[in-house]
């Protein structure tokens, strides 16, 4: 999975909200649209982006299509953040101390 697509997919607040909703349980697009007060086509577009990034999967049951969360690609991004966020924060702090001591 390309982490760039994942970052891009979760950069939109609406799509994060959709993922959070699907993290509770799988549901059809109509139900998602209802809970966000959005049109079906707007929700479908967001779902398409999320599927492209591998974050959402479809399960068919008869004529019904259920959308569900696949959190696996988020681990890529989460690992990256976990690895580098504390690192850069520590360095910003260290620079502040260095400047303090050397001016």
């Amino acid at each position: 999975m390309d982490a760039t697509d994942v970052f891009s997919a979760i950069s939109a607040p609406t799509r994060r909200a959709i993922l959070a909703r699907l993290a509770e349980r799988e549901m059809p697009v109509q139900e998602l649209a209802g809970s966000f007060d959005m049109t079906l086509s707007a929700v479908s577009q967001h779902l398409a982006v999320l599927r492209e990034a591998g974050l959402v999967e479809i399960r068919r049951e008869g004529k019904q299509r259920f959308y569900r969360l696949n959190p696996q690609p988020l681990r890529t991004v989460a690992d990256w953040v976990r690895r580098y966020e504390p690192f850069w924060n520590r360095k910003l702090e260290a620079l502040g101390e260095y400047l303090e001591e050397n001016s």
Partner: protein
Amino acid sequence: MNDKLEFEAIYPHSPDEVWRAITDPEALSRWFLPTDFRPLIGLRFRFEAPERPIDCRVLKIEEGRQVVFSWRDRDDEDPSFVTWTLEPVDGGTRLTIEHQLPEEPVVTILPVEASMNWRAFLRRLFPVPTMVIVC
């Protein structure tokens, strides 16, 4: 695409002082990591991190304002990209650090507030008790 981590801090020092601290190898070796960095475009250099060296290359120098370099530690298949940008502000200098995922460098701005939101979101899905945000 918003595919980068972004951090910033404001220091009560002049842009010149901060510029020296982020481009002088001796200064960098004291507050950042031991290095043979020099502000020369194309230069290959290393940061000697405790666990393993990080192989880097200077990609851009804008005197007094911006440094861009590639960043590859042993675990990374492809280099990522680090951008340090200085900006004078009231009473000091703002340093912005962007760390971009291994991909082609593209210029995008991720507002700090937006980045905080998705980080908070990730944390909810994958809680990490030790994570601390300083700035």
